[in-house]
């Protein structure tokens, strides 16, 4: 039985007066991939953003309930949010490379924010991250140029490398493959499997097939409510709730 690393407890979220998440209870197991599926606007991204406390950054957003990381609340007042966010790396749906920085500096940015001073350490970490995502050979000759000219998929892999370089404890991926091509999606899926052998990955997707392919466990969210969560094979083969079945069989969404 895998160890639970993250526990979402009665989590509720509002954007202005609109309720986005409704009493979510969910466990995330270590070294596993958890997919969160659901139609657009169901609250998948908001849930991820509550886990790394990015949700509350937007004006009018508020959260109730708790998220426990290794038994301690991430919403505790004493919690250093900046450190927390580095521990819970996030890859967004759109590739978010900073084109005013070089490819190297894009990846090194997180380390510099962590006050890593040694150039050798940074260089080594950047190379390792790029090797992990399989981008090293493509970019090693242009490390100090802007990522502007990279393809969309390559940019997204760069973002993945940037999140890995921080040695995160949890990786959050918000529809990270939704804007990349088929080939890069396959690379991403392979990478997620590899990375999840060491770190838990929480992955939101609108693609049921993708969830079935890559995840150990799957959670289905609808209108901010967690309908069902369980082993991926169980959820897809024997959904307990008719709404899950309807979604999986394409009756809606």
């Amino acid at each position: 039985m895998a160890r639970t690393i993250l526990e979402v407890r009665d989590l509720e979220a509002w954007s202005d007066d609109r309720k986005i998440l409704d009493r979510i209870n969910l466990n995330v197991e270590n070294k596993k991939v958890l997919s969160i599926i659901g139609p657009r606007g169901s609250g998948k991204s908001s849930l991820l953003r509550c886990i790394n406390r990015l949700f509350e950054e937007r004006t009018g957003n508020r959260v109730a309930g708790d998220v426990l990381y290794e038994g301690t609340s991430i919403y505790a007042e004493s919690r250093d949010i900046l450190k927390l966010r580095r521990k819970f790396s996030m890859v967004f749906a759109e590739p978010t490379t900073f084109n005013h920085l070089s490819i190297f500096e894009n990846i090194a940015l997180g380390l510099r924010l962590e006050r890593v001073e040694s150039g050798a350490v940074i260089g080594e970490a950047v190379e390792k991250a790029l090797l992990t995502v399989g981008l090293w050979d493509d970019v090693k000759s242009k490390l100090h140029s802007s990522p502007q000219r990279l393809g969309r998929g390559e940019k997204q892999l760069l973002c993945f490398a940037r999140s890995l370089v921080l040695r995160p404890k949890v990786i959050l991926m918000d529809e990270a493959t939704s804007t990349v091509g088929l080939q890069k999606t396959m690379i991403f899926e392979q990478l997620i499997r590899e990375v999840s052998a060491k770190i838990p990955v929480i992955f939101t997707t609108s693609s049921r097939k993708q969830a079935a392919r890559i995840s150990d466990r799957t959670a289905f969210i609808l209108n901010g409510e967690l309908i069902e969560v369980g082993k991926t094979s169980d959820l897809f083969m024997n959904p307990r709730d008719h709404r899950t079945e309807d979604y999986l069989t394409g009756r809606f969404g």
Partner: protein
Amino acid sequence: MFKLEARLNRSRSMMLSLYSLSFFALGSSLVFLVSLFYHLITRVEWSQRQRLGQLLLESLGYISVAMFWSIPLAVGLTYLAVTWSNTRYALGFSEVLHFVDRTPALILGVVFLYFSFLQPLYLILVYVLLAVSQLSRRWIRLSSRVRSLDIDCMLSLGHNVVGVTLTLYMRQFLFHYLGHLVAVFCNLFVIVTPVFFLKSYAVSSSVLGLKMYHWLGRDSGAAALFALTVVIFHSLRVFLDRKTSYLEVEFG
């Protein structure tokens, strides 16, 4: 007759001045209204307060742009109009010359005032407002999802809000402002050179020690040097602008 012609020329130039001023003010106001309409219809997802904040900022920006561009252009056109009427009508030459004699000083004054003070001031104002709004994170959100993702991404990497502002906005501000400083010189050369070409042939002036420009106006080498400087400044400006192209500021 002599005085009458001069008076006529002066009133004609004043009319032209007024006309050009209103033309540019009207043009800029139209741009402002169109963009205002565009923002109103395309940002329906914004709350009233966000829209009001954005609107205020943009109004400030566009009105400043309209004002700042109108004045030097109007003065420039007036000068050209006076020069034109000067050549067209031989009568009243000395009176018109008297006016023309002071025009470069006026143009120089406005141009210097505009480029060295008003435009940077306006830019500083816009960037300070942007920085403040970003710091408080209450007033406006950046318009596109990608750009707001940039901020989220910075935050997720462990930047704090001040850090994000400094990294994304101040860096942009520095590049952008540097670009504008270069543009100041560039535009100065572009505007001033032809004026003094004309001026040097038109009058023998001592206003503001403009003897120098006689030399500049007549000397082809100096003119070539001017042209080269303009090209270099323009290239620099384009380069600096490209440096900031990853994040477009909506103002100015």
